[in-house]
């Protein structure tokens, strides 16, 4: 925290003022709080999914790409839904979004188990491929005719719009899905035999293999779920906020990466992901606030986030490894 405070101090702003602006704006004022809730929705979904993957020691850095690829499939359904009965448009879009995310997630799982491709690299790179695919679609084949030349797809039909809480941008249906999914993820990890497989694989893959747990099955499972939840988050953003496919960085302002911090800070417990997501959503909203009120760049908030993750990991290290000062062996002998 003090390191983050230093970042503000360097830029000539009293750290306490900055913190107040960030959190005061996002939690104490109604508009700010509604925005915080809106941004917390994708974070809850993604971080719950990442918790599952990280518990199995599958380092999924690609939630961003899984979210975007889910968006692509969901958009495909949304744009061609005019012939469908209106009540099944949203369920189909969510299904498509989850499928897309799951596909994008299981690909690195397959690569890791079949060809020993490092999942950090593959999931990270797939982010860029998904982002470029979105760009290609919105500038190319899916470019909307009604968007005055902007690289957006046409707006989805009204049946594809998620209801919001009046006066806010909170698409409550996705929020509900997020809360249910976080609880389900917790239940899966802690109470089901599949969760047992995930935990054992993460703790000791060799012991898991000896008890007959298939590494391929576990990897596919965790990445299917992790990617699927990211895809759901993307669909929620599409149908609840944007109503069309747009620039990849507009659909997700780094949710896939912020959620990594959220998952770790929640100690990979999907239930804890809910409050921690709110906290970080508040940081994101507050980041917008300090841009206008204090004239600081948004990157300051990213530095803040990074510092939190860094010190979190440091704290974890010191919790696991006690430091003891010892005389060196040669001096003792």
């Amino acid at each position, binding site marked *: 925290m003090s390191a983050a405070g230093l970042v503000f101090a360097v830029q000539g702003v009293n750290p306490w003022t900055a913190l107040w602006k960030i959190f005061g704006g996002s939690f104490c004022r109604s508009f700010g709080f509604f925005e915080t809730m809106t941004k917390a929705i994708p974070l809850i979904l993604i971080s719950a999914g990442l918790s599952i993957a990280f518990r199995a020691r599958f380092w999924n850095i690609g939630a961003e790409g899984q979210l975007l690829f889910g968006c692509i499939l969901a958009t495909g359904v949304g744009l061609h839904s005019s012939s469908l009965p209106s009540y099944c448009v949203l369920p189909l879009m969510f299904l498509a979004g989850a499928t897309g995310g799951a596909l994008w997630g299981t690909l690195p799982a397959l690569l890791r188990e079949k060809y020993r491709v490092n999942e950090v690299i593959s999931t990270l790179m797939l982010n860029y491929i998904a982002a470029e695919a979105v760009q290609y679609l919105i500038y190319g084949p899916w470019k909307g005719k009604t968007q005055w030349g902007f690289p957006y797809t046409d707006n989805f039909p009204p049946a594809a719009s998620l209801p919001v809480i009046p006066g806010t941008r909170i698409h409550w249906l996705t929020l509900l899905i997020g809360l249910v999914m976080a609880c389900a993820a917790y239940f899966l990890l802690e*109470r*089901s*035999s*599949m*969760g*047992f*497989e995930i*935990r*054992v694989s993460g*703790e*000791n893959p*060799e*012991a*898991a*293999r*000896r*008890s*007959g747990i298939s590494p391929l099955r576990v990897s596919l499972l965790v990445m299917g779920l992790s990617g699927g939840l990211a895809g759901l988050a993307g669909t929620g953003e599409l149908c609840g906020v944007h109503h069309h496919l747009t620039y990849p960085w507009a659909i997700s302002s780094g949710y896939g990466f912020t959620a990594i911090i959220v998952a770790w800070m929640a100690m990979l417990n999907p239930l804890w992901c809910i409050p921690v997501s709110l906290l970080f959503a508040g940081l994101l909203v507050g980041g917008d606030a300090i841009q206008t009120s204090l004239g600081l760049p948004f990157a300051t908030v990213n530095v803040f986030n990074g510092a939190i993750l860094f010190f979190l990991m440091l704290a974890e290290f010191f919790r696991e490894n006690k430091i003891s000062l010892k005389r060196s*062996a*040669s001096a003792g*002998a």
Partner: protein
Amino acid sequence: MHDRPVLQLDAISRSFGPVQALSEVSIDLKPGEILGLLGANGAGKSTLMNILCGLHRPDSGQININGSKADIRSPAEAAGLGIGMVHQHFMLVPNMTVSENIALSLLHCPFFNPLSGLEKSIRERSEQFGLTISPDEFVINLSAGERQRVELMKVLLLSPRILILDEPTSVLTPREAAALFAVLRRFSSEGRSAIFISHKLEEVMQITNRVAVMKNGRLSGVVTTKETDSHELARLMLGSGTAGAGNAGCVRQGDKTLDVSSLTVIGDSGTQALTNVSFCIRSGEILGIAGVSGNGQRELSEAICGLRPVHSGRIFLNGIDLAGKSVRSINEAGVSAIPEERIHYGVAAGLSITDNAILKDYYQQPFSVNHMLQNEAARNHASGIIMQYQVSAPGQDTPVRYLSGGNIQKVIAGREIERRPILLIASHPTYGLDVGATDFIRSQLLLLRHSSAILLISESIDELIRLCDRIAVICAGRITGEFLPGEVTLEQIGLMMGGESVNL
């Protein structure tokens, strides 16, 4: 050879905690001599050599090199004193070339363009010792024998006066071993000395001038190779006298439970780890596998458990062939295993005793019903194991990593035995345990024998003789003998462990 010794070890002692690894070991090494160092596992060979290499320091005793006292504090100092060691496990970077790997190991290597001049010196040494290597080949493409030649070249470039080879032939084919011996002879003909660590008696007889034999951290004898034979060496290694029958009675034996026939398995390095291994175990019987570790024991247990593919041969469990079946179906067929390296293979150390107690049967009744874990059943099972197997732990929710080695082993033994297996494979089940835990695990094995067949893999001859109904000896992936305890002398066991066949 009456020259002054190049190396004198004088009453070297070293202990690790309560374990006395070396006590008062004195050896000297003459110029131009190849000294064999022989001993069973845990005899102290490695500790002694690690002291020479500067990895450990002796608690007491003195090392003299060329007559002057030497204090070896680091591997670099050992190299400076002319001591070079070829380790049993290769320390090479696979995706770099041979000369790059060699440059890595050199102490005085130019910072810029480190390979300059290296080719020339490699070629010189190659000619000098008849050691052929190809400098531009990538290490990943080399066979085990070629890799060893690279390791040897790394050491030879430092012009050592004393060369230490730790079990150099364990990965070599007989032809490669012969080539290595030729290099060694040329090396010693220049007046330099070598220490050759091995447990293969035949090789020791073939290549060495003198042999030092260690047993339980002490030097049990130094003999001149010409004046001895493998029988004497085996006797020095394991002690004299008969291997007394200590089996706690017999139980009535049933049908053949496990029937392994001409099993051949490929090891990690791509060579055959097991060749045509055949044996059987009846229910009510404990079959011991004796041998120096690294001779195929791990591969044997992995092949039976389905963790390692079977190259050829069959493994019948009550008439059903296990070869090619999945780990899980073999578990379900009634095979349990107490693995070696308990923390790496046996438990998920961060999880609780409860989770570890159901590690193999978590998905079955009563621990899971409709894919839902039944915590109550699991906790009861765990507390049952804690009580019955005398695990000292605060409770069943304690993470296993906070337990001592003995208690971890009791948790594993409890889990595996309580599955009521048809066959239990116990690999080094008492390795590193204190007396109490050792006795307890042994008594549990004897109890289980009433209902199951047990394959006991151990390095401790004493343990095998106490527990087993029958003992087979494994060396270099082959069964070199099978006998009843009390039927043979320790000397004969030593010969079989050293790869010589014995007529019983």
